[in-house]
């Protein structure tokens, strides 16, 4: 199965990269963008056919390796 894990900084954490990108977008004349946050996408190929079990494994992987729960949130997309 293919899993996509999207990791983003928590809203309560200052994201200076996001601020810099938002300012760069404004410099292009597009001040319609009010916020920007920079995260990361991790794509995993994972064996198994049981969706529930696979999701549980992905939650563990996301919590223990792919994200730092102190400063990041994640969501999992599975196909």
């Amino acid at each position, binding site marked *: 199965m293919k899993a996509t894990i999207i990791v983003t*900084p928590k809203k309560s*954490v*200052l994201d*200076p990269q996001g601020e810099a990108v938002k300012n760069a977008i404004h410099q292009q004349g597009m001040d319609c963008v009010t916020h920007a946050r920079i995260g990361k996408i991790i794509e995993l190929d994972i064996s198994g056919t049981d969706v529930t079990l696979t999701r549980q494994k992905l939650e563990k992987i996301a919590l223990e*390796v792919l994200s*730092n729960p*102190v*400063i990041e949130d994640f969501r999992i997309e599975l196909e």
Partner: protein
Amino acid sequence: MRWAVVQFPGSNCDQDCLYLLQEVLKQEAYYVWHKDSDLKNADGIVLPGGFSYGDYLRCGAIAKLSPVMKSVVQAANEGKIVVGICNGFQVLCESGLLPGALIRNKNLKFRCHQQLIRVENTKTRFTSKYESQAVLNLPIAHGEGSYFADPSTLKSIAQNKQILFRYCSEEGSITDFSNPNGACENIAGICNTKGNVLGLMPHPERAAESALGCVDGLGIFQSIINGS
């Protein structure tokens, strides 16, 4: 004391740490490779600065999963001394031995310069040799050294007197201007509740010999050794 200096792939301050311990402080000290889990009965463990695993994923995120870290966590739980410097501090936070996290510097710049820090608590195994509120001049060199913790964690570490060093001005004032990276409450270094694990972003091993122009960093290790 017996000291283990851990080496991760990408650590680059390990030699300076070993030199400080062996040549300056005349301690028994040796390297431990990250794949080894035998700390050889070390009394003290140093996680040095650098760019372990190239800072891939997050600083210290992959290093925390190295086999040696199981032994480091066990040693910390047994009350052994653990000192994490810069990337080492990042590894300690990632592994849960210290609360909070280190994030990208607020101004997005890699800050590489001398930095003044104030000693906030001298009643610890890491700071007993310093005068209360002493101002130390130590080098910093980091792009992701901004200490972050949520409000309840910040309140807890303040109440438990776990904040050991804060960025400060020449007069010893805690100001925004003297904060090089946007760290919460100008926090530069903290310890755990048991008081045996220290993490700090500045580099004491680079200010530990008069030939380097400053010896302000020596006190941390002298405090540990004298208290052992």
